């Protein structure tokens, strides 16, 4: 049985990854999960400088989901390399670093710094964050800005470059094409959907930052639809994510068009979710006599 998946030059041993921001820097889950079994660990998003994050409340539960507004809190690239990366190097699992910046130049510099560190196998760009040079509008909602920032990063790294697409756009297939044209090796589909919840007694937003990113099973049908649409528009592999709780959910994404999947919010509910999903995928392949996981990607029968 072949579970291997290629993202650009990077070969993953299997299609199960962690979604950025839901698996810490790996250490938090090592007690529950054999990290060596994962296709890749995608770490919490990093920036050039440490970021304190938003005031609380930062999370609120919603029907079959949660809203978060953590505010990209992170230790910064330098401390990550010094303090967190050595732990991850101990495993025989691909390490993908999610990162972001306030400007195109910061993205490029961050990519450059990360690419020179030993033990990082791929980069994932978060483009769902505000652009300082464009009135803090979101990078990933404007095709031209997206093209510019992805190209700038592409010039600075030879590592596999994944662009994590924002679902808060009219046409995600177009954004995926733009990322591909700018040199991305793969796209992550999708990031959280912007949402809001209000306490009707106090009439205050339930999150201190007013809006937050919605994740969990509540967004899964949207994410599946977006993976399906992106699959029609690009040739590069898609990493499907959005409310994957079990292997049935993971298979749905693969059949819709994903080459790999990322498990996010499910880690909060069940710390063993990633490996249980991997076991379930293997079981599915056995039952259906599938030799190569890649042969299932995008096989949804819409006729």
């Amino acid at each position, binding site marked *: 049985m072949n579970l291997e998946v290629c993202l650009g030059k990077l070969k993953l041993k299997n299609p199960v990854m962690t979604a950025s921001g839901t698996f*810490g820097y790996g250490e938090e889950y090592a007690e529950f999960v054999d990290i060596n079994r994962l296709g890749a660990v995608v770490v919490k998003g990093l920036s050039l400088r440490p970021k304190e994050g938003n005031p609380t*409340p*930062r*999370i609120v539960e919603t029907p079959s989901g949660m809203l*978060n507004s953590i505010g990209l809190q992170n230790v910064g690239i330098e401390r990550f390399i010094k303090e967190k990366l050595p732990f991850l190097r101990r495993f025989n699992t691909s390490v993908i670093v999610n990162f972001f910046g306030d400007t195109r130049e910061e993205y490029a510099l961050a990519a450059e710094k990360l690419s020179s560190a030993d033990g990082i196998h791929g980069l994932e760009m978060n483009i769902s964050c505000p652009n300082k040079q464009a009135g803090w509008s979101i990078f990933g909602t404007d095709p031209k800005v997206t093209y510019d920032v992805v190209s700038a990063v592409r010039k600075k790294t030879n590592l596999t470059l994944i662009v994590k697409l924002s679902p808060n756009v009219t046409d995600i297939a177009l954004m995926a094409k733009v990322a591909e044209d700018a040199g991305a090796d793969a796209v992550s589909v999708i990031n959280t959907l912007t949402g809001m919840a209000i306490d009707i007694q106090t009439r205050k937003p339930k999150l201190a930052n007013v809006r937050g990113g919605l994740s969990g*099973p509540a967004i899964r049908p949207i994410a599946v639809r977006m993976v399906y649409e992106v699959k029609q528009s690009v040739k590069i592999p898609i990493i499907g994510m959005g409310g994957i709780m079990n292997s049935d959910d993971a298979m749905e994404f693969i059949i819709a068009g994903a080459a790999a999947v990322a498990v996010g*919010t499910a880690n*909060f509910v069940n*710390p063993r979710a990633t490996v249980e999903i991997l076991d379930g995928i293997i079981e599915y392949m056995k039952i259906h006599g599938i030799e190569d996981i890649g042969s299932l990607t995008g096989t949804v029968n819409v006729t």
Partner: protein
Amino acid sequence: MSRYFTSRIIENIALNTDHNLLTLSLPEGVAEPLPGQFYMIGVNRGTDPLLKRAFSLFRRTSDGFQVMYRIKGRGTSLLREMGKEVTIEVLGPLGNYYPVPPEGQAPLVIAGGIGLASVFPFLHAYQGRAFVFYGARSCDEIFMLDELKGMGREVFISTVDGSLGTKGNIVDTLDKYLESNRSDISKYVLYACGPQAMLRAISEVSASKGITAYISLEEHMACGLGACLGCVVKTKTGYKRVCKEGPVFKSEEITW
């Protein structure tokens, strides 16, 4: 030592109209809890509600452990409906714990409402002399009084409606006690869990009288493992995770 396991409900009894005491089995080989630690408990069947709920360890029993909870929202309402033999997913014990006071120092333990749940195991474990200041809105929200007295603790009670003990706020009772025992003040250490306003007042007492206070905090929590960064509290050295660096903090660390 596993910290993620399936537990069986041994008992889930009502203490009053909106407080329950839940006894869960502890399978062999799982980690032993310490006073002040907490568990994340699955209250759902399916994905709604999605997240586990955090509950303080109330008591380690011979075959399991207990949590005391107030029925406040959907999660605790669902938990109340779960009967004997129902199995649930449990993650824990999590977080840090109440430190043992230094030699020669006596703990003054302050509980506000359901905050009793967190400090109770500390009182249970601590062998020396300890004082309890326990406040609630009304007498029907004061629990385990006989047990507290049975542990040989000196217990001060206050209720907001005056139905039991002193009428008013428990921090005022604490303050009066400290005022009338001024000469002993250096011998005390405070341990507190309760509503945020109470903890803040304790923090002020701690600062003005120069007494160390350990307070157990609560925040919205998703993972309980330090990964989601949802449950942070602002401290003098930046945001810290209630689930990991806490839930017990020195009150002087907190930026209110």
